[in-house]
């Protein structure tokens, strides 16, 4: 039905000739745009409804005094649905520690939350198919669980800034009124429009790259040095991705362009994870609660795990 609509617009409404490169590209562009925005709206809305049941305060209570392993898995999963932005990373970190959430479990949450979310998964699904989306989600969760467990095992609590442990909650009672199901739907609607407003431009650019640019992208140099033939492709792509800062939607056009230029899937997924999970601004924010040593360990473990994921998928895909 969407396909029929797209060809109606291109050939009947615009009166373009059939089977030209331009009309074909335009048809593809219209079809993909509608498909992806439908997917985005429906899934973000559904996740937002689930999200309304897991505000950070509740997640904190669930994770408090959880054992490692189980705690890490739960934290990574809750990271998908608990709302969180990097500007809140510090109060969230302090709140978690204060509530007795183990350090490694806190990290699993901090890693999974920006990296694995409905926007990333839907965009990968719409552009590259559900298998790639599923692979990204599962490996993203694995990276969060494993990295968090390693940090937990290393017993690095001493490398958290001391003042974090001295903060005691004033116990301001949360008086957020009990939500009716209608409240949750309203929240979900607001959240969906909020997210769509933020990501639509990136999505259009990504689809545009697929439809029109097809073959020309300026990241040529990147693919030459980080392409499938180069055994160091994965570490190079990750090293380039670590300082870059973007949310999942912002990185999607670049990811699409890299795929178009023939970069292998594992390398591309590793690049996307490095961009969304690690960034300079986030490090500067986290520096307020972590000593430089712990920050370095965190970046090191993440880099190594993400590189491992890249190699794994280049080998099996």
């Amino acid at each position: 039905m969407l396909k029929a609509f797209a060809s109606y617009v291109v050939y009947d409404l615009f009166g373009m000739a059939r089977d030209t490169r331009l009309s074909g590209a335009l048809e593809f562009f219209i079809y993909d745009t509608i498909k992806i925005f439908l997917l985005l709206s429906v899934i973000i809305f559904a996740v937002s409804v689930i999200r309304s049941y897991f505000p950070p305060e509740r997640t904190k209570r669930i994770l408090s005094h959880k054992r490692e392993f189980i705690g890490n898995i739960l934290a990574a999963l809750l990271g998908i649905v608990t709302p969180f932005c990097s500007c809140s990373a510090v109060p969230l970190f302090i709140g978690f520690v204060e509530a007795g959430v183990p350090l490694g479990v806190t990290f699993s949450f901090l890693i999974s939350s920006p990296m694995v979310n409905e926007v990333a998964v839907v965009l990968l699904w719409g552009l590259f198919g559900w298998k790639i989306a599923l692979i990204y989600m599962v490996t993203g969760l694995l990276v969060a669980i494993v990295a968090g467990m390693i940090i937990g095992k290393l017993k690095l609590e001493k490398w958290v800034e001391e003042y974090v442990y001295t903060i005691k909650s004033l116990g301001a009672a949360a008086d957020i009124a009990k939500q009716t199901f209608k409240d949750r739907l309203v929240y979900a609607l607001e959240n969906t429009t909020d997210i769509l407003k933020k990501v639509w431009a990136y999505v259009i650019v990504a689809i545009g790259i697929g439809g029109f640019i097809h073959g020309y992208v300026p990241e040529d140099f990147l693919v030459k040095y980080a392409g499938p033939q180069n055994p160091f492709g994965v570490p190079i792509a990750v090293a380039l991705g670590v300082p870059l800062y973007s949310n999942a939607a912002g990185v999607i056009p670049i990811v699409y362009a890299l795929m178009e230029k023939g970069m292998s899937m594992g390398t591309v997924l590793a690049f996307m994870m490095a961009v969304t999970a690690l960034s300079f601004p986030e490090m500067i924010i986290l520096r307020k609660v972590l000593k430089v040593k712990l920050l370095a360990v965190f970046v090191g473990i993440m880099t190594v795990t993400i590189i491992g994921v890249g190699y794994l998928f280049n080998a099996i895909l």
Partner: protein
Amino acid sequence: MEIKVLGPGCANCFKMEELAKSAVKELGIEAKIEKITDIGQIAMHGILSTPGLIVNGKIKHSGKPLPSLEKVKELIKGEA
């Protein structure tokens, strides 16, 4: 009445402060609006996602998306 707006200084935190000010003005009530930007202080108040709104010591809102002006007025009025 004591109103606290908590946030480290992101765009949404400024909007939240504006919302609180407008709400107080439109309701025509006496209220002291305090802006808390220190991260440790924010955490101490039990706010996990910013911006936060605390009225008379009770957390009324935290995180995004921001409440509407009408909603903020309701939240404040509930404590008046």
